[in-house]
């Protein structure tokens, strides 16, 4: 009916509905996911997405090696009981790395529980990231330090926060771009829909990045959607959708990089779906054999993101044997830091339970904190009596 396009650059409210059929079709993703380097390490050219240069690929490849090492290390620590639970991104590290490295310092990353590697790649201290999963009570890191939101657990809720952060930045005229991650399962939640629609209507710089790893715990993609692809949802919000091989680091850097550039240039939000696979169980607590065969998983082994990027870089002599060794050493160093950090017990202070619920404790919380303090003091006295020592100090825990 209307022929206006949906480019609302610069205005707070985006374009108007309508649009010519061809303009509309431009919002649809390509029929096949963008791939620049295939599983055998051969590169393919793509008209829209130039291959990132060797230096960039090599740098990102290093993060890939470290990312894999972090996943392996965390899994080991779970087995040793030093981490409560770990949702591994094993096999998805190319997505993790790309999501972090395409962003500038002024940008924000909104990760989920599975995106620990992305968060660390962005610069957050690994020990801080693992705080919560060690049993401490808070999310671990200061979101403002590296502009990384806390790893969201309630699915898709964070996508709306991402829109809000971008909206605030836009209102202040800042050039911040927000990259918000979610899984294939999360796309079914109402908050996914509302986030994409708000982003489009307010024309804010958010890149929605779906890691489609074909499972939501035990539920396969076909029970999640029967759409041609998840990226086909974008047109319903009037934003472009794109599909990318989620195990192809080069393609991810290119496609996500273009989406970030577009957003920064006032082109508004977009949706990128990466096709990847969850190689391990949902978490260590999950038993994946109940719902998928090892054959299914095996089929994805040859598509591993590290294998192909290594082959590509080695073939071009961008990566040498020594280079590999030094990347492995770097990765080992990070793993060692994690291991060492997790060897020291988390020190928790129960008084902190009441400290941050409100900026200033309510009288109710003051009473409750006092109750706990008394209990602890009594316990301490009893312990002290038992050990015939003295332990009056702990009563002061919440006085700061």
């Amino acid at each position, binding site marked *: 009916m209307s022929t206006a396009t949906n480019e609302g650059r610069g205005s*707070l*409210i985006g374009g108007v509905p309508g649009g010519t059929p061809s303009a509309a079709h431009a919002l649809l993703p390509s029929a096949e996911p963008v791939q620049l380097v295939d599983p055998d390490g051969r590169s393919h050219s793509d008209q829209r997405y130039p291959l990132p240069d060797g230096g960039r690929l090599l740098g990102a490849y290093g993060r890939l090696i470290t990312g894999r090492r972090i996943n392996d290390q965390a899994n080991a620590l779970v087995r040793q009981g030093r981490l409560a639970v770990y949702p591994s991104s094993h096999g998805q590290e190319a997505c993790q790395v790309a999501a972090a490295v395409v962003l500038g310092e002024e940008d924000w990353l909104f990760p989920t529980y599975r995106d620990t590697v992305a968060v660390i790649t962005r610069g957050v201290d690994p020990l801080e990231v693992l705080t919560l999963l060690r049993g401490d009570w*808070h*999310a671990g890191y*200061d*979101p*403002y330090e590296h502009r990384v*939101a*806390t790893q969201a657990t*309630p699915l898709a*809720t964070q*996508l*709306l*926060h*991402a*829109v*809000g*952060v*971008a*909206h*605030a*930045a836009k*209102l*202040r005229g800042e050039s911040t771009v927000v990259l918000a991650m979610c899984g294939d399962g999360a796309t079914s939640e*109402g*908050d996914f*829909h*509302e*986030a994409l*629609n*708000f982003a489009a*209507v307010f024309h804010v710089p958010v890149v929605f990045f779906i890691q489609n790893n074909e499972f939501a715990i035990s539920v396969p993609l076909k029970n999640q959607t029967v759409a041609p692809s998840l990226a086909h949802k974008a047109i319903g919000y009037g934003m472009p959708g794109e599909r990318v091989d989620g195990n192809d680091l080069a393609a991810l850097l290119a496609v996500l990089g273009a989406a970030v550039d577009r957003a920064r240039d006032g082109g508004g939000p977009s949706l990128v779906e990466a096709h990847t696979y969850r190689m391990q169980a949902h978490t260590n607590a999950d038993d994946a054999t109940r719902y998928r065969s090892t054959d299914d998983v095996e089929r994805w082994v040859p598509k591993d993101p590290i294998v192909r990027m290594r082959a590509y870089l080695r073939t071009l002599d961008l990566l040498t044997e020594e280079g590999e060794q030094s990347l492995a050493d770097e990765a080992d160093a990070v793993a060692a830091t994690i291991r060492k950090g997790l060897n020291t017990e988390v020190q928790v202070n129960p008084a*902190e339970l009441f*400290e*941050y*619920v*409100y*900026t200033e404790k*309510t*009288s*109710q919380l003051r009473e409750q904190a006092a109750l706990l303090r008394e209990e602890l003091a009594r316990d301490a006295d009893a312990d002290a009596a038992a050990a015939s020592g003295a332990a009056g100090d702990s009563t002061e825990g919440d006085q700061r």
Partner: protein
Amino acid sequence: MTQTTEAPAPGITGRPDAGALAPRATTFAKALNAALADAMEVDASVLMFGEDVGPLGGVFRITDGLTARFGEERCFDTPLAEAGIMGMAVGMAMNGMKPVVEMQFDAFAYPAFEQVVSHVAKMPNRTKGKVRLPIVIRIPYAGGIGGVEHHCDSSEAYYAHTPGLTVLAPATVRDAYFMLREAIASPDPVVFLEPKKLYWSKEEVDLAELRRTFDDGQAPRRIGRAVVARPGTDATLISYGPSVPTALAAAAAAAEEGRSIEVIDLRSIVPFDDETVCASVRRTGRAVVVAEAPGFASVASEIVARVQERCFHSLAAPVLRVTGFDIPYPSPKLEHFYLPSVDRILDAVDSLQWEDGA
């Protein structure tokens, strides 16, 4: 915690406010509108958004004129999605803004419940206070306006039970102004319940004077501070929001029968002002809690529980409740059977075992 030193609020009966210059009749709705406008003027990070709050000015006109005055970047309509509104507010608050959002009616805030409970209430704690969320959730609230289903819910218990939220319900025009200003200034998320039936109530107040008082830091704190809305000696009625005028009317009626009833206007449900409430009940020895919401597992239950825990030996009778029934809010023709009424309150007061040894 000390009780506010301010004189009892003037109630909604329009009693002239002695302190104000050039008073004139101002509605509760207008006071809220002025509070929003004043807050937006003094602080450029204050934003107002929601459904129909832009050019229309909100279905109750609380945001009237704000888009025209502050531009559509500061007061704007969103797509029709409450979780979206709430979630976007979280992100904006994370990034330096002070969003005030309007949920069009109480029952239409429920789609946002996950965002409220899992994020608005908990994000500050989750981040050790690094991320504060100075969000105000304005909710036209409760019944008594002859509304149809979904338009008259008293939803305060859901919020009051959720740690991390401040929950306020003004009952007077002055409090409407001061409490909304205070809510917007608060670094913590506030659920701000606006009793719909009081929107058109009037008081003689001078809004310019209120603004000066607030901006000069002279307005006594109201968050966490109850107020004695009417002093009395024989029994205490504890109420908030839409029930305050009903409680005051009941006290007036009781006075004619020779009973001196004190009325407390909580104003702040969370934090709760134990001191003011318990001081009153210890003095009078009898208490009735009045609230519109269904009584089961409600804020009224909490008040009864706290009062008997803290004032047990001062009580001459059990603390009673006059609340809504445990049924869905009824339709216009039936709401008067549901709502706490002066008669029902007086009945409750009468049953407070006034005979010796009863």
